[in-house]
Structures are given as C-alpha cells and as structure tokens.
C-alpha cells in the first residue's frame, strides 16, 4: 500500500463525516439561457441538430440512416430493471448554453457562469499551475449537448495527440472520424445505440498517433443541466499502433423531480500493441430516497482490440443514476489481445443497476479478466450480467471472472447472471462468485474503535472494492473513494 492510497481511505471517511443531510452535492442547477430544440424526435429535428453543428452531408445521412433503423427497433426489456415507459416524443434532443452560439474560440471566452459551474464540481477548466508531483489532467467539459472547452490542447498537440470535442473532430479531422465512427458500435447495435447515432450531440474525440504515450491523463466531464433534456454524447478514442492513453469520464446532473435520459455511446479502437485504459466515475443524480427523479443511464460502451497485442481495460465506479443499463465490452479480435473489466456498482435507496461486461474472444491466445463488485443497500436492486464468449477459431482463450456482491441491510437484492459460451475446447474459463453481508460484529468492532456507523460502512465497503479502486488513476481513486462513502449515506441506521 502506498501512503497516498492510505490517505484516500482517510479522505473517504472525512468526506462522510463532514457530510450533513443532503446526499447529492452536485444537485444545483445553473441559470443559463439555453438554445433548445423543440421537443420531439423526427427527421427534421435530426436535420436541425446536424445543421446547428454544421456537419458534412455524409454525417447527416449517417444520422438519418440510424434514425430509420431505430424506428424499427424495440426498447429492450431483458434487463433486471423496471421504469415507466419513456415518451421519446416528449424529450428535447438538443440544448446548448446560449453563449456558446457563436462558439468560444478559447477557454477565456467561455461564459464565466459555466466556468463557475465546473469550479463547483471541482473540475478545473483553467490550465492552472500544476503543483510538483501532481500529474496534469487535460479536461474536456460537456455541458448538456455541447463541449464547452478542452484544456491543455497545445501541449497535447505537441505530442501529436488530438483531444477535442466530437464536433470539432468532425470539422478538423473528418477522415479519422469517418473511418472509425460506428466501426465498433454499429448504428443498429441496439435500441439506445441507434437512438444515440441519430441524435448524438457532442462528446470527446481522442487520437493517439503511432508510438506515442499520451503525456497526461485525459478526461471528460459530462453535466446535464437543462430540464427534460436527453444527453446523447458520443466518445471515440483511437489508439494507433504502439500508443498508450489513460482516459477518464465523470458525470453529474442537477437534482430534478422528473427523470432524465442519458444514452451515450463510447467506441474505443486499439491497434497493434496499443493500450487504452478507460475509467468512469459515474455520479449522475440517482433520484431521492423515495425514487423520485434521477437519470436513466442507458449506455453502450465497447472497445475493439483490433490488431495483435492490443489491450483495453475498462474501470468503472457506478454510484449514480436511477436506472443503469451498461455493459462495457471488449472485442478481442487481434491475436494475443487482452481485455479487462473492473467494476464497482453501488445501488442505494431505490436505484436499479443492471451492469456487467462482454468479452468476445475472436483471436488466438487472447485473455480477459473481469472483477465485479456490486454493493446493494436500501431497497435497491443490483445485477451483474456478464458474457464470456469464445469463437471457434479463438485457440487458447483465457478468462478469469470474479463477481462479488455485498449486501447492506435486508431489503436490497443482488443478482448474478453469467453467460459462458466456449466454442473452442482449448479455452480455460474460470468463474468465482461470492455474496456477503456486512456483519454486525464487524460494525461493532469498527464502532468500538471510534468510527460512527457511516464511517464504518464506508471503510468496509472501500475494503471490499479495493481490487478495483486500485486500478483507477490516482487522482480519480480519491474521488471514487469519497463517492463510495457518500453514495451509501443513510444506508445504515
């Protein structure tokens, strides 16, 4: 254990200790004039979005094509979640802060109200002096439907790294976008991916050139502000041969009584010998203790290890959202490719989580690892759904899956749904699963040492999640540990 890691646990506990009453500290709204599309979804709205973004014809066609397919599709109902039917005609598909109309040329021109919002969220959009010993993190901030700024671009450009909003990438790097967009998650992959392909607004774009190790962490912060607005961001990360990048996304939203839809698509492409580490700290508003409000988080994330020895690793800390439907996956196409999935999914109150991963072994000598930690408290429901599938030609595939559930209280539920499919007899697939509860004895022991019940739960849960937390980049591990504590507020009593 490094000293820094120990410091994190302390911070978790501080955080919980300092936390009074209101659970969700990102619940404020920002008073900003917004430029919004009328509610409803049809080809004209899609043309409106595409025109707003001054997109090339091919992209409009691509969107319309996705929309046509979406109309023939059914909303999936196989997940272990239950929510009222969404009226897709009653949603707004595009909202941008008015001040972004003409597009700021640099961060200096960004509306100060927006900068303050991000400051409140603890996300620096100024390229501050970086203290010795602290690594730099470049940030792309997405507010409702648009990116409001990306930091450290020049420094990244020197290394040849492209890190910008998706809209800018469409303008400045159309060939890259056209080549890779939809190449991992096709338009008609699933209902929500098709919807996203039709109406996606903004997101982040990353390209790391051959042989380059990205000189800093890249991160995107998503914020839904407008009421009744869906957020449909699209992220595309391409790691060219022999390159490396570590990327993190974070998400928050105001507290609102109505539900808000978030249907994102993330595509990762790793070419020969390239490595992508993708981490998520998802803290969308989860709704209140009675299940009013909160984000519907229906997300498609997939990485393609397209060429030999590519590696993709997903790490996620899911604490927010009313309903989560999310399965970051790896396609192990190249020989000797490696896919990893590390997950912490916490559900409290009436939250519902159905999450997991898919590992698709196509190449030879591929291996994958899945570590999932589900924590359910309150009256929540938490399901792990995982698929490991080995193609007939995928000789010597390896998978190790460990799936642990922790229950807090006796009104919550945990489910584990593993699908394993091996069509090549050389495959070696291991699966371990455990379910445990925080025992009264453990609680008493901690309290006898001075911890109050919430500190005790935060400590025990952080211990339970340790294998996964250790995979997060340092800066985000701190944040994640705090979140673990906060999201379980009120789970003991």
């Amino acid at each position, binding site marked *: 254990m490094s*000293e820094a890691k120990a410091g994190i646990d302390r911070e978790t506990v501080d955080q919980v200790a300092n936390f009074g009453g209101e659970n969700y500290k990102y619940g404020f709204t920002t008073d900003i004039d917004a430029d919004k599309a009328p509610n409803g979804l049809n080809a004209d709205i899609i043309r409106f979005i595409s025109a707003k973004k001054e997109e090339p014809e091919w992209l409009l066609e691509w969107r319309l094509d996705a929309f046509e397919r979406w109309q023939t599709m059914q909303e999936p109902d196989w997940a272990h979640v239950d929510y009222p039917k969404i009226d897709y005609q009653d949603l707004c598909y595009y909202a941008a802060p008015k001040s972004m109309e003409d597009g700021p040329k640099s961060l200096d021109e960004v509306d100060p109200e927006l900068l303050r919002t991000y400051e409140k969220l603890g996300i620096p959009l100024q390229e501050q002096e970086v203290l010795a010993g602290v690594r730099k993190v470049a940030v792309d901030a997405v507010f409702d439907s648009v990116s409001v700024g990306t930091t450290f671009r020049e420094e990244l450009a020197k290394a040849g790294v492209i890190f910008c909003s998706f809209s800018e990438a469409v303008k400045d790097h159309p060939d890259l976008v056209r080549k890779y967009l939809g190449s991992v998650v096709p338009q008609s992959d699933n209902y929500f991916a098709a919807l996203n392909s039709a109406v996606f607004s903004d997101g982040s774009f990353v390209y790391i050139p051959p042989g380059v190790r990205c000189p800093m962490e890249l991160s995107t912060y998503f914020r839904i502000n407008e009421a009744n607005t869906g957020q449909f961001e699209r992220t595309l990360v391409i790691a060219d041969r022999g390159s490396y990048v570590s990327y993190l996304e974070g998400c928050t939203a105001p507290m609102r009584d109505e539900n808000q839809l978030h249907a994102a698509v993330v595509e990762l492409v790793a070419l020969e010998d390239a490595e992508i580490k993708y981490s998520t700290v998802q803290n969308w508003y989860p709704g209140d203790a009675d299940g009013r409000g909160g984000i519907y988080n229906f997300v498609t994330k997939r990485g393609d290890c397209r060429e030999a020895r590519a590696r993709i690793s997903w790490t996620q800390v899911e604490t927010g959202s009313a309903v989560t439907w999310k399965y970051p996956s790896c396609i192990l196409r190249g020989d000797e490719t490696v896919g990893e999935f590390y997950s912490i999914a916490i559900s409290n109150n009436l939250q519902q989580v159905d999450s997991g991963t898919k590992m698709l072994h196509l190449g030879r000598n591929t291996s994958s690892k899945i570590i999932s930690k589900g924590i359910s408290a309150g009256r929540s429901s938490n399901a792990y759904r995982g698929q490991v599938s080995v193609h007939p030609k995928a000789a010597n595939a390896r998978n190790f899956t460990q799936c642990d559930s922790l229950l807090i209280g006796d009104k919550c539920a945990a489910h584990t749904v593993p699908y394993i499919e091996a069509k090549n007899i050389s495959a070696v697939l291991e699966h371990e699963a455990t379910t445990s509860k925080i025992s009264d*004895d*453990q609680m008493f022991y901690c*309290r*006898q*040492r001075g911890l*109050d019940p919430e500190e005790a739960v935060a400590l025990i849960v952080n*211990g339970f999640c340790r294998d996964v937390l250790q995979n997060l980049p340092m800066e985000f591990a701190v944040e994640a540990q705090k979140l673990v504590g906060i999201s379980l507020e009120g789970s003991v009593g």
Partner: protein
Amino acid sequence: MALLEIENLHAGVDDKTILNGFDLTIEAGEVHAIMGPNGSGKSTLSYVLAGRDGYEAQNGAVRFDGADLLDMEPEARAIAGMFLAFQYPLEIPGVTNMTFLRTALNAVRRGRGEDEMDPASFLRMVREKSRAMGVDDDMLKRPLNVGFSGGEKKRNEVLQMAVLEPRLAILDETDSGLDIDALQTVADGVNAMRSDARGMLVITHYQRLLDFIKPDFVHVMVQGRIVRSGGPELAEELERSGYGAYLGAETGGQGDGAGAAHA
C-alpha cells in the same frame, strides 16, 4: 471521582440475564484482573461496557468518568476513552491494518475535538509502536486480521490500544493463544501503557499473565458477579485450587463482592 463505577449491574442478551448484580470500581492508575470459569459472563461484561448491540443492561448503573456510560453509543464510548481488546478480533477484508489504525485514531481525535495527526507523524508513531509489539511492516500492509494467526491478532489488538491511548483498556483473554515470547511482548506493551491516568481491566484464565502484568486487584467472577476480591496472591491460589469452592459458595449470595467472603 472513580474512572469506572459499576453498580449492581444486571444485563444480558435477549431475555437471558448473564450479569447478575455486578459491582466494580476502577480508579485511574489501577490494574484489575478478572478470573472466572468459562461462561461466567466475563466477555458479556466487556460487551455491555463497550455497548455492543443486543447486550442490554436491565438494571444498575455504570459511570465512566462521571458520565452515564450506558446512555452512550459505542463510538462515543471509544471517543471517551474506552477500549476493548476483543477475545475474538474481527477481520475486515481489503482494509489494511495501517488504514484501519489511521481511520480509528482520526475518528477518535476528531471526536475529542483534536486535529487529525499529520501523515508523517502518524507513520513514525505507528512504526515505533508496531516495532515494540513485534508487528512488522508486512502485517501493517495486510488487510486487518485477515489470515493473521491467533497470536498475531492478539498482538495487533494491543497495538491498536497503544495507538489509541485509551483511558480504560479492557483486555479480554489477550493472553490466550500466545506463545511464551509473545506473552512477554504483549505484557511489555501493556505495562508500557500503565500510567496514573489510565485504568485496566484484564480478563484472563491464567495466573501466568499476572506474573508479567502485576495487577493491583484480582476478582473472581462466577455466574455473573464478583464473588471474591483480593490482591495478586488470589490468582496464585486459584491456580492451585480452581473455582470449586466458589461454585458452591455463589448460591450463598455475597452480593457486595468485595473481599468480605474471604475474611
């Protein structure tokens, strides 16, 4: 004012009464030993004092530093300076020993309105105290008590005590399962903590421990109450003749506990 004052305590689990008119007063600076047959209620006493859920006082009073102890949450008792070295220490997977120590110390300090200890001083202090307890760096990095041997767990309890510096330490059979050298280490650790400001309640089955930790008073506990009290020589006598005499005598009902039964 006495550090701890237990008066006519009746307590138990569910409807079962286990402590049956228990009296004991501990002054700051004193070390008391309690001995008694299996099932006489020694651990129950420690749980009632520490505030474990389900261990309810039915009657009587306990004052800790003048405050009504039975009214306090377990963590408030810890913050007030009550420490229990568990007979069976708990495991907490994934939480390193070091993290646990730091979290506990800071919780207690915060509770007392003190500043948290800065990381560098904390490390120095823990290293020093662990060395004294024969707890090596590896054990500090491992998850709390997970896979620790019985003796390691006990030494670790004493390390926690040394770090938290309580006003009153209750050691529940901290000597069982220790080899001879570890017994010496633990005793040295406990003796180093003896001070005018601190009281100790040592629960043990073996007179041997009391050779290392010289108690000021020895009490014999049978069926939920103290049936006899004396000095260190009482432990030696028990070692020779066992509890037989008291098991019969108990029904005689020497309620006041003190040395009277012996006189």
